């Protein structure tokens, strides 16, 4: 196909002094999944809002299915579906009513709106709950209903803004299955996420954005290659020994170890040497007489990718209170691996709300 499904060139958008987008380029071929990865306030939501005609860009252009998002906004709206960060459903109404009303607003006939609602409720495992008020749904069910609503119009391009933020791990896996089944039938998908593993699971291509700029693009494997495989990480409870610990393991990793002076967390990329590197680390620390807590081997996180790409952890160099924010970002990324439902999400909503209002 000659033209990509989504094409973005030099897109800029500022809100007063805040430069949410500083010239980003994207190209998403038909029927593929682009994961837009970035920390809070990186500009992900702003980009989605421009692409879904909710916001006008300051500069550059964005084309969806061949239609310019500013000049042919109406045609773009006929081609897209959007599921935002919160479940945009009417909680007093039942799941079925929510979908039927969306169907009517897509100008389906009543019988067609009804049958489309039944299809989607079935597809999203909500048939049993179809006639219950959505306010009695679990968080995961509400998100599924919201996703179903975005598909009523059978869009060729779907935008999902942090589709699993705030979900518990089980709901998150369920959501991944649903998203995989959607893209299997040829829908183009642009998905934003803060979680590397989510982008890894779902996306064909990933772009990493930070402070309104694309700082890396490639497949998940390519990005992880930049990090250099697995990461050995441990905490040094005695803050005075952090520098000793860094010195002790300096030669074991593939690059410089990274140490957070506030939290005492030290990490280093160890490539494919995984468990061998882990044993070496234990020996090195032991012979240096350094006590550690929570020593372990883990897959690279978003922070590791950021560290490798930019030399700083996500958001770390932001004033004010720079080290604090960095460590919070780290903890968030860590929780994200074990349990994606984390309270930092509310902060994310606020940040995005501020950035886009």
């Amino acid at each position, binding site marked *: 196909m000659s033209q990509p499904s989504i094409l973005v060139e030099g897109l800029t958008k500022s809100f007063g002094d805040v430069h949410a987008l500083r010239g980003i380029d994207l190209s998403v071929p038909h029927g593929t999944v682009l994961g837009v990865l970035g920390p809070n306030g990186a500009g992900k939501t702003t980009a989605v*809002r421009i692409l*879904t005609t909710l916001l006008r860009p300051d500069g550059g252009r964005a084309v969806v299915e061949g239609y310019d998002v500013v000049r042919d906004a109406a045609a773009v709206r006929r081609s897209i579906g959007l599921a935002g960060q919160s479940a945009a459903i009417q909680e007093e109404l039942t799941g079925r009513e929510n979908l039927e*009303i969306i169907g009517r607003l*897509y100008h389906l006939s009543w019988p067609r709106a009804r049958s489309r609602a039944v299809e989607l409720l079935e597809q999203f495992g909500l048939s049993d709950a179809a006639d219950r008020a959505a306010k009695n749904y679990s968080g995961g069910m509400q998100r599924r209903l919201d996703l179903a609503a975005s598909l009523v119009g059978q869009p060729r391009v779907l935008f999902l803004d942090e589709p699993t933020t705030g979900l518990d791990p089980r709901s998150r896996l369920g959501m991944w299955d649903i998203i995989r089944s959607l893209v299997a039938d040829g829908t183009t998908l642009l998905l934003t996420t803060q979680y590397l593993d989510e982008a890894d699971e779902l996306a064909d291509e990933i772009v990493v954005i930070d402070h309104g700029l694309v700082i890396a693009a490639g497949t998940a494997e390519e990005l992880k290659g930049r990090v250099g495989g697995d990461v050995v990480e441990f905490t040094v409870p005695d803050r005075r020994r952090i520098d000793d610990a860094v010195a002790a393991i300096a030669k074991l990793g593939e690059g410089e170890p990274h140490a957070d002076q506030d939290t005492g967390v030290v990490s280093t990329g160890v490539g494919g040497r995984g468990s061998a590197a882990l044993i070496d680390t234990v020996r090195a620390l032991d012979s240096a007489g350094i006590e550690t807590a929570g020593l372990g081997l883990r897959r690279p996180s978003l922070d590791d990718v950021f560290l490798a790409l930019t030399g700083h952890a996500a958001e770390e160099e932001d004033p004010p209170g720079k080290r604090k924010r960095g460590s919070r970002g780290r903890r968030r990324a860590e929780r994200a691996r074990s349990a994606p439902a984390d309270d930092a999400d509310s902060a994310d909503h606020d940040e995005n709300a501020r950035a886009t209002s």
Partner: protein
Amino acid sequence: MSDTLTITRRNLLVWMRVPAYLMFTVIQPVMFVLLFRYVFGGAIPVHVRGGYVNFLMPGIIGQTAAFATFGTAIALAQELKKGVIDRFRSMPMARSAVLAGRLVADTGRMLLTILIIVGVGYAVGFRFTNGVGGAVAMVVLATVFGLAICCISAYTGLAIGDEESVQAFGLIWLFPITFLSSAFVPIPSMPGWLQAFANNQPVTYVINTMRALALGGPVEASLWKSIAWLAGIFIVFLPLAVRAYRRAG
């Protein structure tokens, strides 16, 4: 047009699912009726045939219409916050439908509340004394007045976009404009500086017109001023609300 009907139907459906909300919006004006009829009314001398209850009811009905628009502002702020308005704006539907459907549904809700309050008024001694035509005209004027206030509330809901702030802001402007008017007490009983405000603000013109329509008396002067004010409110706030919707989020 069909989109507006769909949104209207949706809003009415939501409203019927929350009977507590209906109860609340009805109980509040009923309490005002009882409070002013039986507690304050005896201390407020009026020269109206049928006594204070006849003076009071057009005022309460006007206030009921204005207060009903709290719901408009809050509902729009909630929809904005939850992303419902983002979804509608990203869909190929009529751009005007969300606002139009909101105004139509809320006007219907307002009319029902007004009729209930008229019934309550009758139970406590209020009587229309200017014929059926006057009574119907009063209800129509109250509804058009409520719709005008609804436009202001819709604008505040979309512009502020936060449920609690919207509610607090509603109290700040809706209470003064309804109480500092001829709705509950004769304006000559107020201090002079307050009379200057109360005599020249739209709620007073509308309430005076409603009172004349309900009870008889000269209508024309206050009617024209009411129409002029209401037209002005529509001309200013309807476009503002539309613009706030277009830029929502």
